[in-house]
C-alpha cells in the first residue's frame, strides 16, 4: 500500500515537472501571490478572479495553476496581515495578533521569513497525509452506495455551514439557498426546466463563476468601497536581508511550528473544521503551554509560526476529502472542485483512478509550488511590499473588469455578466443582513450531486427514508449530523458568549468571526 502510494507520487512528480505544467504552476504561484497581497483580496476573491484564465487550458494544467494560485494567495494574505494588520482571510486574523507587533518592532521581515518556513513545514505534513490517506479513503468510499454518499454530503454541508463562522442557523440557510441555486436549470433526470422563467440562457443552470464573482467579488467591493481606511505603510519597508531569522528565532519557532502542524492536521480530519478553527486552536494551545503567556500579543514569533503552520497543514488536509470523496470542506475547496467540474471532470472516489495525472500531479505540484513560494518570496518581497500601497480606488475598478471579462469568457455570453450583477447585489444584501455567503458556494457545487444520489437512494429503497439509518455506515454519518446539530443547540441553550467579531479591519468577508467556544478558547 505504501509502496503504491510512493510509486504514484513518483509518477505525479513526472506530471508536475513537465515543462508546461511547471510553467503554469509557477504562473499560478506568482499571480496568486501578487493578487493575494493586495489589501482586501482574500484567497476566495483571488481564485475567483483568476479562474477564467484557466478556461482554455487542459485540466491538469488548470488545476495545477489554481493550486498555485491558492497558496500564493494565502501567503500574500499573510504578508498583508503581518505588515498591515489587515487579515483578508479569516485564518490570518490570529497571525495579526503577534505578527503586526513584530512589524512595529522592526522585526516584520523575520516574521515573514519564518512564516514561509512554517507554511512549508505545515504544508509538507499535509501533503504527506494526502499521499497516504487519500487512497485508503477512496478504497472505503468505493464501497459507498447512494445512501452513504448522500448522508456523507449532508454531514459535509452541515459541518461546513455550522462550524464555519457566524450564526449556525444563518449558515444552514445559506447552504439551503446554495442547494436550491444548484437545482436551477434543466433537471438531468427528467429533462424539465426548473426556475428558468422562460430564459433559455438559464437552461444549463447558473454559472458557477458568476456566483463566485458575484458573492466574493462584487458584493465585497460594495462592502469595501469608500470604507477602506488609508493604508499605513509606515512599517512596510522590509528588505531581503531583514527576512533572515537569527538562530535563536529558529530555535524558538521549531517546536511551535510542529505543534501547529499537528493541530492543523487533526483539525483537517474533523469535517468542517477548516483552517480558521485550526489557527485559533493552535494559537490558544501555544499560549497555554507557553512559560510566559502574558507576552503573547506583544510580538512573539511563536504566535506567528504556530497558527501559520496549522493553517497550511489544515488546508492541505482539506484536500483529502475534496479530492478523494468529492466533498469539499469549505468554500475555497468548493471553488477548486467547481473548477475541475468546469473542465468536465466528475469529482468523487473514482477521480484518483480515472485521472491519476490530475490527483498525483496536484500532490506533487503542491511541493514544487511551495518550494517556488519560498524561492519567489525571498527576492520579490520588496515588490510585494510596494504593492501593499496600491490604493483601493485603483484596485476595485480594475477588479471589476476582471469580473466582467471573466464571467463573459466562461461561455462567451453576455447574459452571465448580467447574472453576476444580480448575484452581486443580492450578495451584498445578504452580507448586510449578517449572512456569510460562503456556504452558498458549498451548496451550489454539491447540489446536483446531492439530488442525484438522493434520488438513486430512494429508488433503491423503494421510497423508504429509513434506508439512511438502516445501513450502518450511513447511520454513522447521520448520527454525526445529529450530534453536530445537538451540540450547536446545547451551546446555544447554555448561553455561550456570542461570537466575537474582532473589528480588525473594514473588509466584510474578511472579518474573522469564529464560533464562540473557539474564540473563548483563544483568549
Amino acid at each position, binding site marked *: 500500500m505504501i509502496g503504491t502510494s510512493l510509486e504514484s507520487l513518483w509518477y505525479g512528480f513526472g506530471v508536475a515537472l513537465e515543462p508546461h505544467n511547471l510553467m503554469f504552476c509557477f504562473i499560478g504561484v506568482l499571480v496568486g501571490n501578487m493578487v493575494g497581497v493586495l489589501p482586501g483580496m482574500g484567497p476566495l476573491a483571488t481564485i475567483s478572479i483568476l479562474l477564467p484564465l484557466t478556461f482554455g487550458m487542459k485540466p491538469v494544467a488548470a488545476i495545477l495553476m489554481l493550486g498555485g494560485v491558492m497558496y500564493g494567495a494565502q501567503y500574500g494574505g499573510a504578508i498583508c496581515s503581518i505588515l498591515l494588520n489587515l487579515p483578508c482571510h479569516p485564518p490570518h486574523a490570529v497571525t495579526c495578533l503577534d505578527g503586526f507587533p513584530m512589524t512595529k518592532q522592526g522585526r516584520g521581515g523575520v516574521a515573514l521569513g519564518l512564516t514561509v518556513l512554517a507554511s512549508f513545514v505545515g504544508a509538507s505534513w499535509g501533503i504527506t497525509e494526502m499521499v497516504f490517506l487519500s487512497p485508503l479513503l477512496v478504497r472505503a468510499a468505493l464501497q459507498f452506495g447512494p445512501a452513504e454518499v448522500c448522508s456523507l454530503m449532508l454531514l459535509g454541508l452541515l459541518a461546513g455551514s455550522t462550524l464555519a463562522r457566524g450564526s449556525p442557523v444563518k449558515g444552514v440557510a445559506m447552504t439551503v439557498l446554495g442547494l436550491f441555486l444548484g437545482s436551477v436549470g434543466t433537471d438531468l433526470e427528467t429533462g424539465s426546466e426548473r426556475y428558468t422563467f422562460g430564459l433559455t440562457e438559464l437552461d444549463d443552470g447558473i454559472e458557477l463563476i458568476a456566483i463566485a464573482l458575484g458573492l466574493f467579488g462584487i458584493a465585497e467591493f460594495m462592502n469595501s*468601497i469608500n470604507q477602506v481606511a488609508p493604508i499605513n505603510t509606515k512599517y512596510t519597508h522590509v528588505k531581503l536581508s531583514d527576512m533572515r531569522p537569527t538562530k535563536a528565532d529558529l530555535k524558538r519557532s521549531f517546536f511551535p511550528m510542529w505543534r501547529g502542524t499537528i493541530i492543523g492536521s487533526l483539525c483537517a480530519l474533523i469535517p468542517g473544521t477548516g483552517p480558521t478553527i485550526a489557527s485559533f486552536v493552535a494559537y490558544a494551545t501555544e499560549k497555554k503551554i507557553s512559560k510566559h503567556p502574558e507576552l503573547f500579543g506583544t510580538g512573539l514569533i511563536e504566535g506567528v509560526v504556530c497558527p501559520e503552520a496549522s493553517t497550511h497543514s489544515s488546508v492541505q488536509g482539506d484536500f483529502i476529502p475534496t479530492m478523494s470523496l468529492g466533498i469539499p470542506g469549505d468554500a475555497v475547496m468548493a471553488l477548486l472542485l467547481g473548477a475541475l467540474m468546469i473542465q468536465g471532470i466528475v469529482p468523487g472516489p473514482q477521480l484518483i483512478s480515472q485521472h491519476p495525472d490530475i490527483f498525483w500531479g496536484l500532490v506533487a505540484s503542491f511541493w514544487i509550488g511551495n518550494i517556488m513560494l519560498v524561492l519567489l518570496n525571498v527576492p520579490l518581497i520588496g515588490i510585494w511590499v510596494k504593492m501593499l500601497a496600491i490604493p483601493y*480606488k485603483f484596485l476595485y475598478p480594475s477588479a471589476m*473588469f476582471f469580473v466582467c*471579462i471573466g464571467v463573459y469568457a466562461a461561455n462567451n455570453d453576455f447574459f452571465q455578466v448580467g447574472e453576476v450583477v444580480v448575484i452581486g447585489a443580492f450578495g451584498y444584501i445578504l452580507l448586510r443582513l449578517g449572512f456569510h455567503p460562503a456556504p452558498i458556494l458549498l451548496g451550489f457545487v454539491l447540489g446536483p450531486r446531492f439530488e442525484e444520489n438522493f434520488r438513486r437512494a430512494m429508488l433503491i429503497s423503494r421510497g423508504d427514508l429509513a434506508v439512511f439509518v438502516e445501513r450502518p455506515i450511513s447511520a454513522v454519518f447521520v448520527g454525526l449530523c445529529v450530534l453536530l446539530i445537538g451540540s450547536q443547540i446545547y451551546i446555544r441553550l447554555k448561553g455561550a458568549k456570542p461570537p466575537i467579531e474582532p473589528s480588525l479591519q473594514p473588509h466584510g468577508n474578511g472579518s474573522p468571526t469564529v464560533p464562540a467556544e473557539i474564540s473563548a478558547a483563544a483568549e
Partner: protein
Amino acid sequence: MRLSTSPFRELMGKRDFYAGGLMILLGLGIALKGTSYRAGTLMHMGPGFLPTALGVLLVLLGIAIAATGLAPSEGGSEDDQRLLPEHPQWWGWFCILLSPVFFIFFGKNFGMIPGTFACVFIAALGDKNATWTGTFVLATVITVFGVGLFSYFLQVPMPILAWWGAQ
C-alpha cells in the same frame, strides 16, 4: 426580556427580523413555484420534489432566524442591528452595479475596447475622491493591459472593436 412591551415592535428594529423575513419570502417563492413542477413520489421523485422541500426548509430556517431576534440582545455591538452601514455609499454601489451593465452594452455593440473602458471608468467614478483625469488614465491603462491579455494572449472571442455588433 420585557415581554410586556410589544415584542413585535422590538423585533421590527432588529436586523435578524429582516434576515429571517427575507429567507421566509425566498422560501415561500421557491416552494410555491416548485409546486408547479411535478413532485412525484419519494420513490420516483419528480423535478419539483427537492426544490419544494428546500423552499419549505428555508421558510422554517427563516422563522428560526427571525425568532433569534426575539432573544434579548446578546451584547453585540450596535452596528450588528443596523440595516444600512454607518455611511451608506449609494453612489459607489450604483457605480459598481452599473459598471457590468456598461460592459454588456458597449461590449455587445462596440467591442472589447469600449466595453472595458466604460466598465472601468464607471466603476472608478464610484470612489469619493475620484477625479476625471485619474479615472480616465486608470481606464485607459486597464483597457490596454486587459485587451492585450484577454484578446491577444487568452484569445477570448470578442471583437476588439465593432459598430453596433457588426465587425
